[in-house]
C-alpha cells in the first residue's frame, strides 16, 4: 500500500559573504530554526571551502530537523549568476574565474541548490517576508561595500538576458568623475557606497578649513560619520548630504525608467538614518520624472541585518525544482 508522502517543510539558506559565511535552517514561513557562521577567508581553495561548509551544514541540519526534512538549498553569493548557477569573476571573493557553485554543492549535498546574488536574494526575501510583501513592481537597493540592485516587474524578478541586470552602482552619474573599482569613472557606487562616502569625507576635510571632530579620527567609516553627525559635526552632516544628493539622483533615474511602487534600501549605509535619507528623498523628488513623482515610495528594509540574506536564500531554495540523491 502506498503511504502518503510528507512534505518537506524546511530549506537551507546560505549567505556567502566576503568575511563571513552564514548558513541556516529555515521553515516555509521564514522562521530561522538554527543558524551558524564561520570565517570565509580561511579557505582560499574553493574545494576546501565547500568541504568544510558541507560538513558544518550537515551537522547543523542533523541537530535541527534531520536531513530528510530539507527540501533544497538556496545560496546567496556576490557576483553569482542565477541563470547559470555559477560564481562569475568575483571582484572581492578570493575564488577567481567562473565556478559552477550550484552544481558543486548539489553533488556534495545530494539536494537541489539554487544560487543568486545578494540583491536578488534580498529582493526575494523582502517580497516574501519584508517590506515588498504584496508588491509586483519594486526595486531593492543594496548599499554597503558595494552598490547593487534587483527589480521585480509584473511580480517576477528581472534578471536580464545574461543574468547581469541591476548594476545600478555602475551607472555613470558624473562623466569623467571618480575612479571606480570596476575600471570606469564616475560610477554611482564610487560616490554612494562605503568607500565613496569615506572619500567624500576626506575631500571635504581637505577643501574646507572649518574645525571638525573628523580631523581627529584615524579610521573614518560610515558608523563614525553617523555618530559625528548626531553630535552636530558640520562636515559629517555635509558628507551625508552630498552622498544623499548623488543617491537621490541615481534612484530618480532608476524610477523614471521603471515606475516602481517602491524603492527599498537595504545594507549597512541606510543605518545613517535621516542624515542620509532626507537629502536622498529631496534629490529624488527633484530629479524624478513628473508622472512618477509622488508615486514611488522610498523605504528602508524592515528585516534584520544578520538574517536578511539567509532568509532571501531560503526563498530562493523554494524556487528550485526538488531533487534528492537519497530517494
Amino acid at each position, binding site marked *: 500500500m502506498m503511504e502518503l508522502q510528507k512534505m518537506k517543510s524546511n530549506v537551507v539558506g546560505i549567505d556567502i559573504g566576503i568575511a563571513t559565511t552564514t548558513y541556516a535552517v529555515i521553515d516555509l514561513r521564514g522562521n530561522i530554526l538554527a543558524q551558524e557562521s564561520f570565517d570565509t577567508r580561511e579557505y582560499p581553495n574553493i574545494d576546501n571551502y565547500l568541504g568544510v561548509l558541507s560538513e558544518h551544514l550537515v551537522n547543523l541540519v542533523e541537530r535541527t530537523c534531520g536531513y530528510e526534512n530539507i527540501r533544497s538549498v538556496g545560496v546567496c553569493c556576490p557576483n553569482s549568476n542565477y541563470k547559470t548557477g555559477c560564481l562569475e569573476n568575483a571582484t572581492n571573493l578570493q575564488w577567481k574565474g567562473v565556478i559552477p557553485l550550484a552544481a558543486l554543492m548539489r553533488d556534495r549535498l545530494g539536494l537541489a541548490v539554487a544560487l543568486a546574488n545578494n540583491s536578488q536574494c534580498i529582493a526575494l526575501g523582502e517580497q516574501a517576508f519584508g517590506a515588498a510583501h504584496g508588491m509586483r513592481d519594486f526595486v531593492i537597493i543594496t548599499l554597503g561595500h558595494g552598490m547593487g540592485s534587483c527589480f521585480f516587474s509584473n511580480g517576477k524578478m528581472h534578471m536580464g538576458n545574461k543574468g547581469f541586470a541591476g548594476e545600478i552602482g555602475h551607472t555613470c552619474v558624473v*562623466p569623467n568623475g571618480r575612479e571606480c573599482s570596476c575600471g570606469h569613472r564616475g560610477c554611482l557606487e564610487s560616490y554612494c557606497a562605503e568607500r565613496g562616502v569615506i572619500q567624500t569625507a576626506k575631500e571635504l576635510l581637505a577643501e574646507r578649513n572649518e574645525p571638525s571632530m573628523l580631523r581627529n579620527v584615524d579610521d573614518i567609516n560610515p558608523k563614525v560619520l553617523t555618530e559625528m553627525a548626531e553630535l552636530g559635526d558640520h562636515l559629517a552632516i555635509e558628507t551625508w548630504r552630498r552622498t544623499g544628493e548623488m543617491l537621490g539622483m541615481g534612484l530618480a533615474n532608476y524610477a523614471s525608467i521603471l515606475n516602481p511602487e517602491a524603492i527599498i534600501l537595504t545594507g549597512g549605509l541606510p543605518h545613517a538614518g535621516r542624515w542620509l535619507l532626507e537629502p536622498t528623498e529631496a534629490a529624488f523628488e527633484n*530629479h524624478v520624472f513628473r508622472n512618477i513623482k509622488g508615486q514611488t515610495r522610498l523605504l528602508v528594509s524592515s528585516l534584520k541585518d544578520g538574517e536578511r540574506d539567509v532568509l532571501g536564500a531560503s526563498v530562493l531554495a523554494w524556487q528550485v525544482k526538488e531533487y534528492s540523491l537519497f530517494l
Partner: protein
Amino acid sequence: MLIDNIKTHVVGVDIRLESTTIAIIDIRGNIVATTHFPTMNYHDVGNFLTAMSDAIMNLLEQNTGIDCIRSIGISAPSGNFYSGCIENSPNFPWKGVVPLAAMLRDRLGLAVALGNDAHVCALGEWAFGAAHGMKDFVLLTMQSGMGSCIVSNGQVCYGANGFAGEVGHTCVIPEGRECGCGKKGCLEAYVTIKGINKTAKEVLAESNKPSLLRDVDTFTSQAIVNFCEQGDELAIETLRRTGKILGLGLANFATILNPEAIVFTEDLMVLSRWIMEDTYATFQEYVFRNIADKVKFTVSSLDDQTRALMGASVLAWDVKEYSLFK
C-alpha cells in the same frame, strides 16, 4: 454539436495626432486592408468614435466582413493598457480620462484592447520584427520626445502605474540643459531633434567653418542627415556629439537592464547611420564590463506605421474574445 471555426482576423487601430489608421490583419501579421481619416477633425470624442466605428465597419464590409473578426487593438499616445483609457493626453483635444476601449466595445460589440503607443510598438517589433524571439529587450522610440518600452521575462514592463520606460527623462548631464519636463540634463534634451538643433547652434558658435546648417533656422532629422551625406563637417560633428550622449544614456540603461538588444525606431532609424558609431563606442566605454559586447544594437525592420498596426493586432489577440452577437 457543430465544430466551431476560429476567427482568423483582428482589427488594428493606430491613433496619431495627424491621422487615425485602421487595418484588418490576419494571424500571421498580413495586412489585408487599410483606411485612414484625419484625427483632429473631431474635437468631440463622441464624434471621433462615430467616425472610427463607421470607418471600421466600412472597411470590414468592403473586405472580410465582421464574422471573421475576433477583436480590436488600439495604439494611442497616453493610452493606459490597464484601464483601457486615454489619460490626460497633452496633445489630443479630448481632455481628462477617456475610456475609449469600453466606448468602442459598446458600439461594435467586439472586445477592444488599448495600449500606449510605445508599448504597442514593442509588441509589433516583437511579434513580426527585429525583436522576434527575444525575452529581454528594449525598444527606443523617438519623435518629438524620447521614450522606450522594456520587455522583461517575455512580458512588457508597465511599472506600478503604467509609466515605465521614461528613459528620455533620466539625467545624463547633472545641471545640464533644461528639458521640457522641467528638469535639467535629461537625455531627451540632447538627442531629440529639438536637442540636436541646440547642439548644432553650440557647434556653429564654436567654429568659423562654413556649414549648410548656417543657412537654416531649424532642421529636421532627415535634413541634417542630408547635410552629413553632403560632407558637411559641422553637421557631422553635431551628430557625433549627439551619438556620444545617447551612448552614455544607453549604457546606464543597459547596465540596469542587461537587455539582449536595443532596437532603434522612428527618428533614430533616420539618424542611425551618422550617430550609431559614436553611440556604440561610448556605450562600450561606459557600460558595466560584464555586459559589454553582450548587447546588440539593431534598427527596426518595420516602418513606423506597420509597426504600430502590427502591435495593435498583437494587443487584439491578447484580449479575451467577446461578442455581443453570440
